[in-house]
Structures are given as structure tokens and as C-alpha cells.
């Protein structure tokens, strides 16, 4: 056991920052920003916590290679100008510490936030599926590559392969081209027939139809998926199934994403009910717990338009303005229909369950191969026998992957929700100690 006083005296966590607010919003993406702007009209004190260095979420992620759209800048200006809204960036949720209290951690500070009502806008992450070679250097998520480019990664003249499913692949490809990279492959697992049906339905959402034209790429291939990445120390080529053919494409990077997955971990820790893959909400965006609302991708993946409207509804409802919330229901229905159309079109093929070989690592944190866990009935059993999911990511990658690959039931996450410093955890212990 290290000397705790010595550890604390070295200057870690010198900043003790506890906060009180009436409404806590977790996540400063489109949903969180819209929720704050709506709720701020009531005059209550609002705090937004976000784990990125600046607000905007993934879609409006800021960086040196980004020119933010006007809508994003509008919401940022609003947040800065509203006197009853404060924003805490670079802050991760670590654990609940008693009723209506979250422990958070920043780069050098940590503390406890007490709130009366909560809106979860925790967003979504990519579903990352294991395949041979997915741990090689230069292999990343598709949305991840887009985020890296926005935050300054140079890809000029690099050959980049993208594979997986969903519109994010096209957006990532566009980011690559804009940054001077060369898209050498764009493999979409969905069959052409389903995508054609989606395309023919897009007239209902004219902005999306227009967007779909701007995102087209000559390398887009339907009914195609990655089989393996190969190379010495780093990815050098990707092997892809294209229809019935097997092709090899040389590349400097490979980015794979298999759609989006709601971040429901904070909701699970709080005991909110889950509907399928997302947090269950009613017409007011209220969860199964009366004081907790959810909006945006964590309450159902559907893109930034749905996130904005559900965020506004949650913000109004949580601050007592049900009339304003109800006025937005029609708009929400429109974008939910769009979300459903996307979900149908990009549904994952069962063949993707065959992606990993027995010796493919499934848990990247603890280097656990598929063969070590394939006999297990659920994640808990797998953890006991192999340490799968017990590493630094707390099973956020392999937990979701094994659910898809092996049909395991949803496992409840354990706190801390993110790796935390000992000095932060001591605060949790002290906070809970005071209560008993």
C-alpha cells in the first residue's frame, strides 16, 4: 500500500472541486447542448459535464483541422452566454456516491457534483468487432479515424481502407479525402438491395438526400466486409470479402466501425431500465426513474437531428415546461422514422459473427483470445475464467463485441466507470462514509 499522504502531497488532485446544481447534464454533444439551452429558460442552475476537451460531442468535435458548422457555433455561443449554465470539460464520470451525487475526475482535479435532476446525454460509441489483425498498429475505428483527423492527425498521401457498416463510414471517408488521404476501399456489409430501399425513402428527409449525394465515393462496395488485417508490426494490407470474391488491398491504415452503440453505462449504474440497446424513455424523455431523463444517442441512435430535438424535449420537461416539450413531439417522430430506416438498412449480417478466429484477441485490455471464452455462458463466467473485460476499458469494447458475437445477455457495469486515480477514489470512500 503506498503512503497516501505522500501521494496526495506530490500535488495530484490538489484541486478539490465540488459543485451543486439543480440540473446536471451528462454530455455536451448536440443533445446535451440543446437540453441546456431549453432548460436554461426556467432560470434553474445547470451544470454540463463532458469528457472531451471542448463541447460538441463527436459530431461537432472541435480541433485544428475542423471548421465547425454554424449550428454548432450557435449552440456553443449560447452555452457561453447563458448565466445559469456552467460547463465542466475534460471530466469523466467515475461513480455514483450516494443519492444524486456523481464523483468525477479531470486531468488534475476531481470532486463530487450534487444535483436534483439529471439528463443523461452520454451519446454513443462505435461497435468495434474483433477480426484477425485488429490489434495491429494503424487499425482503428472508423469514427475514430475521423476524430483523429479532426484533432490533427496527418494522413496526406496515405492509402486508407474503411470497412464496416453505416453512414459513419462515408463521413470518415470524406474526412480522409479532405485531409489529402487516399481512400482505397470502402466496404459496407449491407446488401445493395437494402441500401437502394433506404435511398428511395430519403425524399422524406430532403437534407439527408442531399447529404447522401455529397458523400458518394467511387470505392463504395456493398455486401463487403473485412476478413483480416495483415502486416509486420503495422497494418500493410487488408483482406476483404466482396460478394463471393476475396480481395487483398494494400493500405497504410484500416478503419473499421460496425455502427453505433448507445452509451448506457451511467444509466445502468443508476438503475434505469433499458429497452433493447438504449435507455428506455417515455414521451417526456423521462427514464424509468422520475428524476432522470435521457436524450440523444444514449436513448436511441438516430443522428444529430434526433439528438437535438430529444435534448430540447428533455431540457423543457426536466425544468417543468411540458407545454414547450410537447410542441416538439412531431419533429421527434420525423427523425425517429429516419433512425428506424437507417437501422433497418444497416442491420448487421449474422456472418460477421464469424469474423474472429479462435486465436483472435477479443479483449484488447487483457489479451484474451476468443477460444478462451467461447465456452462461457455469459460475461461474468468469462471474466472469472479469463479476465476478459477486466482491464482498463472495463469491458466497453469486448463487452459489446461479445454480446454481438456470442449472444450473451447485457451485463451491468461496475464502478469505477473509467480508470481513476487513487486520490479520486478516496473521495468516493469519504463521501459515502459521511452518509453512514
Amino acid at each position, binding site marked *: 500500500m503506498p503512503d497516501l499522504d505522500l501521494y496526495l502531497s506530490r500535488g*495530484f488532485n490538489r484541486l478539490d472541486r465540488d459543485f451543486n446544481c439543480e440540473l446536471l447534464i451528462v454530455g455536451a454533444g448536440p443533445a446535451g447542448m440543446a437540453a441546456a439551452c431549453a432548460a436554461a429558460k426556467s432560470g434553474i442552475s445547470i451544470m454540463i459535464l463532458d*469528457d*472531451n*476537451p471542448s463541447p460538441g460531442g*463527436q459530431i461537432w468535435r472541435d*480541433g*485544428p483541422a475542423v471548421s465547425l458548422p454554424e449550428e454548432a457555433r450557435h449552440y456553443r455561443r449560447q452555452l457561453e452566454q447563458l448565466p445559469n449554465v456552467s460547463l465542466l470539460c*475534460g471530466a*469523466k464520470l467515475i461513480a455514483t456516491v450516494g443519492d444524486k451525487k456523481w464523483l468525477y475526475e479531470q*486531468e*488534475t482535479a476531481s470532486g463530487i457534483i450534487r444535483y436534483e435532476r439529471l439528463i443523461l446525454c452520454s451519446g454513443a*460509441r*462505435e461497435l*468495434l468487432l474483433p477480426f484477425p489483425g485488429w*490489434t495491429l*498498429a*494503424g*487499425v*482503428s*475505428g472508423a*469514427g*475514430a*479515424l*475521423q*476524430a*483523429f483527423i479532426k*484533432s*490533427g*492527425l*496527418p494522413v496526406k498521401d496515405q492509402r486508407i481502407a474503411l470497412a464496416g457498416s453505416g453512414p459513419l463510414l462515408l463521413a470518415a471517408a470524406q474526412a480522409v479525402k479532405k485531409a489529402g488521404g487516399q481512400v482505397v476501399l470502402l466496404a459496407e456489409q449491407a446488401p445493395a438491395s437494402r441500401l437502394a430501399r433506404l435511398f428511395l425513402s430519403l425524399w422524406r428527409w430532403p437534407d439527408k438526400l442531399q447529404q447522401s449525394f455529397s458523400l458518394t465515393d467511387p470505392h463504395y462496395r456493398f455486401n463487403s466486409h473485412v476478413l483480416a488485417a495483415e502486416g509486420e*508490426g503495422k497494418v500493410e494490407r487488408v483482406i476483404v470479402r466482396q460478394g463471393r470474391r476475396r480481395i487483398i488491398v494494400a493500405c497504410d491504415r484500416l478503419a473499421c466501425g460496425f455502427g453505433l452503440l448507445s452509451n448506457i453505462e451511467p444509466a445502468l449504474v443508476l438503475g434505469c431500465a433499458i429497452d433493447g440497446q438504449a435507455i428506455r424513455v417515455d414521451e417526456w424523455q423521462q427514464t424509468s426513474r422520475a428524476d432522470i431523463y435521457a436524450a440523444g444517442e444514449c436513448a436511441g441512435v438516430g443522428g444529430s437531428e434526433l439528438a437535438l430535438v430529444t435534448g430540447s424535449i428533455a431540457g423543457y420537461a426536466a425544468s417543468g415546461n411540458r407545454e414547450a416539450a410537447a410542441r416538439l413531439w412531431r419533429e421527434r417522430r420525423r427523425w425517429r422514422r429516419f433512425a428506424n430506416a437507417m437501422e433497418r438498412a444497416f442491420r448487421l449480417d449474422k456472418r460477421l459473427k464469424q469474423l474472429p478466429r479462435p486465436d483472435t484477441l477479443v479483449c*484488447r*485490455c*487483457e*489479451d484474451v483470445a476468443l477460444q478462451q471464452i467461447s465456452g462461457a455462458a455469459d460475461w461474468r463466467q468469462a471474466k472469472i475464467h479469463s479476465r476478459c473485460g477486466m*482491464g*482498463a*476499458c472495463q469491458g*466497453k*469494447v469486448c463487452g459489446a463485441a461479445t454480446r454481438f458475437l456470442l449472444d450473451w445477455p447485457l451485463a451491468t457495469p461496475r464502478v469505477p466507470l*473509467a*480508470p481513476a*486515480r487513487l486520490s479520486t477514489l478516496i473521495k468516493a470512500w469519504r463521501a459515502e462514509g459521511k452518509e453512514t
Partner: protein
Amino acid sequence: MTLLITILVDGQAFTVPDGITVAAALAYTDKQTTRRSVSGQWRTPFCGMGICQECRVTINGLRRPACQTICRENMHIERIQ
């Protein structure tokens, strides 16, 4: 014109554009790797959004996700062996 700053990666100085993340800055060094896995493989940034922890490095003495940390002048970054 982009402003440039100096960072130290494993003790060696590199000049990188101001405002980029540590994950992006590692591409300006000779290798993008961040840490060694429990079985000794080198890994690189993977999820890009602070979830997977593959990009964690030591920054000014603290373990940090490289994809969510912005480079600052004279920042000390060390790969995890």
C-alpha cells in the same frame, strides 16, 4: 500559418502543430505507438473517443488518454512499456 509547439516524447523533442491531441502528435514521431499490451504487443490509438484506453500514455507524470488530451508547450509524454 499554423503555430508550432515543442513536446517531449520519451525524452526526445518534436515540433508539432498547436492544438492537436497527443494521439495525433504521436504520428509526428517515428512511431505512433502508445503502450505495450499485457502480452507485449505494441498498440496504437484505437477508438478515438476515450473509451478503449489503448491510447493511454504518461503525460507530465499522469496516465492520460492521448486522444482526449491537447498538446501543450513542453509537455512530457512517455509511452507505457
